[in-house]
């Protein structure tokens, strides 16, 4: 990852974090989509 790509990723990550922190339902969906949790909030 170049410095430019890395910076783009970190900017994108910051926006994503802000969006998800403001919307708990979207945060839960993201974490479930990532395969980390089940919809009930248990580890998958």
């Amino acid at each position, binding site marked *: 990852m170049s410095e430019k790509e*890395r910076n783009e990723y970190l900017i994108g990550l910051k926006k994503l974090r802000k969006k998800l922190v403001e919307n*708990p339902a979207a*945060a839960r969906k993201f974490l479930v989509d990532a*395969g*980390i*949790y089940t919809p009930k909030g248990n580890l998958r």
Partner: protein
Amino acid sequence: MYSTRPGLILAFHGCDISVQNKVLNGKSELNFSENTFDWLGSGIYFWEYSQERALEYARRLSKQKHHNNNIKKPAVLGAVIDLGHCLDLIEYKNLQLLKENYESFREIQIASGFDLPENKKGGSLNDLLLRDLDCAIIEFIHQSRVDLNLKPYDSVKGVFLEGDEIYPDAGFKEKNHVQVCIRNPNCIKGFFLPRVLNDRYPTV
């Protein structure tokens, strides 16, 4: 700039001899490991350049009686691997990236109301064998790249300091190793049966 690895590596997977045979004969593929505690997230796991460690691992598992432990006769499968776009957690900048992702994950996890996964010691050993938190952070990185439409990582690589000191006050431990976790099976260019050294000739 340097996250795509040039060249190929050799790596080894400990398994039952039936799995070794099926994969070598093209009758089966290795499946992803998808445990919550996998050290480098979900994927196909290999020991980099360590046939002996792969065999030791398979032998140890063959002695454990678990309902889903299917190793009866330990064996090792060799693989030729192109790591491709690799999240190499030996690299300084990627360790910083991991830290930044932990901070993002933590905020999102709190917002979600879900519990924070934990890394835990396994059995009587002092090593953190069950790494739910590390696994979650790595899966979080993969998912964030999906959401941001960025090129996914083909593989993840890490170095692990494991086991007892090899002598009193040693900085080295008995089971130090490098693991690779393949996310993109096309990284695996081929499998091979590791050979026994012909001791009539020098080691190359």
